[in-house]
Every structure is written in C-alpha cells, then in structure tokens.
C-alpha cells in the first residue's frame, strides 16, 4: 500500500513516518501532485500557524488538489483544521471539506490544551477496536466546533469535535502518531478503510 504524507514544510512529520514504519508501512513524503494522486492513502499533517500553513498550500497548488482527492485522506491536527471551512487562527479560510469552523479556546482554560484527553461518542470505522473514553495526545489552541461531520467528541472548555469525517476525508485533532497503542490502532484502522 502506498501511503503519501503531504510534505509542505509543516513541522514534525518524522513521527508520523516512524508510526507507519512501526505498522510495517513505509510512507513517502511528497508535495508532488502526481505522487499524491497516485497514493492509496494520503496523510495531511500540520503543525504551526494556520495562515502561514495555508499560504504554503496555496503556493504549491495543494489547496486546490486536496479537496478533490478520492482516496482516504487523514488530516492531523492543523491538517484537520485546514480541511474545515474557516479558522479563527490568522483569520484563515480553510479548504472547505468539513462543514464546520475552528475557534480559539476561551481564557477560562489554559491555552494551549496540552496532553492526553479522552474521546467519546465514537462513530466511525476509524475507531474500530478503540474503546469509548480512550486517551489521545494533542496540543492545540483552536478546536473544531461540533457539527454533523463529528465522529468523536472531547471536552476542554466545552465539547468539541476531536475527529471528523466527510466522504473519504477524515480528520483528527489529536496526534495518533504520538498516542501510544490507541494511536497506532487508529492509524491501522485508517489503512484498512475500504475505499
């Protein structure tokens, strides 16, 4: 199986690469349109700031490519947020795949949220063999609002969408590549999704 991690200069993708290696898959890092189109699975990572990440996507033409992909796509962290309509971070328009918006946590809680939080209301094959209340690791100051495309909730400040799905697009706010056994299970589930 050919897994491509979209490489648009966005932070630590080594961990994602190693996580797939541990599952016996060697992913390719690429920003090449033909290579991405030919992949069986596409990982859309992202850490850092939304508007500069969006700028990098536009510059490489990936902003118009990604929403049209037909194979299973997994957005992680900022990657997930950029698949939404809009994010308050840097007043940035997203790629519009997930029909929801991304907002900043209020100052009633420490921002960023950093650490292991539980996931609930699991409603997708992405969470196959993963129990309600399992822990995943994340670091983020912004969250996707709960909506019709939510497939998992978490709570911090309020209930938000910690995982999303629309058609062949999946998104997780947390870092499965850093979430121990559960994270590994989720990545394996993503590989096993039937097209």
């Amino acid at each position, binding site marked *: 199986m050919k897994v491509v991690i979209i490489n648009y200069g966005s932070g630590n993708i080594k961990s994602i690469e190693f996580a797939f290696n541990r599952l016996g898959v060697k992913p390719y890092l690429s920003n090449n349109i033909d290579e991405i189109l030919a992949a069986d699975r596409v990982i859309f990572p992202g850490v850092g700031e939304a508007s500069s990440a969006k700028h990098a996507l536009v510059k490489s033409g990936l902003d118009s490519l990604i929403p049209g992909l037909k194979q299973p796509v997994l957005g992680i962290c900022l990657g997930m947020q950029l698949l939404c309509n809009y994010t308050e971070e840097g007043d940035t328009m997203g790629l519009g795949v997930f029909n929801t918006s991304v907002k900043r946590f209020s100052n009633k809680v*420490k921002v960023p949220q950093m650490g292991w939080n539980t996931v609930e209301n699991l409603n997708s094959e992405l969470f196959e063999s993963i129990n309600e209340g399992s*822990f995943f690791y994340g670091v983020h100051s912004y969250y996707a609002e709960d909506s019709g495309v939510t497939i998992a909730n978490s709570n911090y400040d309020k209930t938000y969408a910690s995982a999303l799905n629309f058609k062949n697009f999946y998104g997780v706010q947390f870092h499965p590549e850093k979430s*121990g056994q559960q994270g590994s299970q989720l990545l394996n589930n993503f590989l096993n999704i039937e097209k």
Partner: protein
Amino acid sequence: MLTKRIIPCLDIHNGRTVKGVNFKNLKDAGDPIALAKMYAKVGADELVFLDISATIEQRQTTLNLVLKIAEHIDIPFTVGGGINTVKDVELLLNNGADKIAINSAAINNPQLIADLVSRFGSQCITVAIDAYCENDKWEVYKNGGTVSTSKNLFEWAKTVEKLGAGEILFTAMNNDGTKKGFANQALFQLSKEVNIPIIASGGAGNIDHFSDAFEKGNADAALAASVFHYGEINIQKLKYKLKQKGIAVRL
C-alpha cells in the same frame, strides 16, 4: 477530560542519563533509549530530554539520540539543552522531537521565543525556567543554574507567555534533588499569573509530592528523574494512587 501528565526527565550527558543533586555531583543513571522505551511502556505521558552538558559542551550526540528515540517510542517528547538558534530547533524537530525547551538562550535573547513561535508554532516551544528562592524572592538563573540573572520568576514567566511560549517548565532549584516535594506555592502563583500549562520540576520524593503539585500547586504536569530512574517510584502505581485521590490521569 484532560489529564495531568507524569513526565520522566532524562538528563543527558555524553549520551548517558545522569542526575545531579542541586545541579552538581552527576551520577550515571543509564542508557537513555532503553529508559525511554521502558517509560513509554509503563505509562509515562511524555518524556523530557535535557542535554545538560550542551550549554557548555558539544551537543551533536543529542541529535543522533533524538532520531533513535523518535523511532522507538510512541509518546511525545521534548528536547532541551544548548538550543541557541532557529536552526538548532529546526534540526531537532526534523529529527523527530515533538517539542523543544529553551532556557538560557531565551534569557539572553527573548526575541528568540517569538521567532521560534512564528516559525514552528507555540505548541512546540517550551520555555524552561530555573529559579532559586532567597528571602521570599524567586530569581531566575541561567547556564544550568550557575548564573543569576536578576530576573523575577513571575515577571519572566509573563514575558515568555506574551512572546508566545506554549508551556513553562519550572525547576525550583531549592527543591531540586532534595526529594522533599515540589515548590507548590510558587507553582500555584505561576498558574495564577500565566494561562499556559506549567510543568512542575524539582523535589519529587514520594507519591504525595505529585498529588500536592497538582492539588496545591495547580500544576498541569509533574516532572521527575531520579525517583523514576532508580525505581523508587513506579509510574503505574503512582498514577493509580493519583486516580484514587481523584486526580485525572491516563491509565
């Protein structure tokens, strides 16, 4: 529910794990990769690697270590020690570090924090602060706790938050290595002054010290080294006890 984090710290010196008492008298505590794998297995929530030789000596071995750690463990880890430039951070992140911690370099050049944040994002920039309390005043120290700065802990914490740091790793030098508990009053004060997560460091000796850091100190995470390395506190047992006390932990 977000849980409190338990973080073993691996002080690295020439590729080995060491732990000093009051930052002096280094003792050998083992192979960092073996320790990292073991900690990930027993339920550590994160790991911190501090290259304590780095500010003064070479740090190239750290980069090689970082890549090996990233390959073998599936929980997040932070690397600190001897980081002076944006390039240093880029190298560490590209080698698989999830977060980096800066200390002396941020004191010498606070703008570095802002530069790192704009380039890599707040989420991976931890500012480590070593402070010593004398006459009820917490003063910030640099260069591995050897040089005083005349900066006040709380003022400096507010500054690093303003510059965009995602987290503060606060080491109370008075407590470090004493096993008499964390500096809970200072921790509590820090959490009041800033709105980013605080990692408590320095003074862990028994399980109650951890619950105190969370309940009295309001810390978001607690870090320790020797009590974990020498097996004095078992992380699984620690987390089980914390849960019994009603503290949210990942089990």
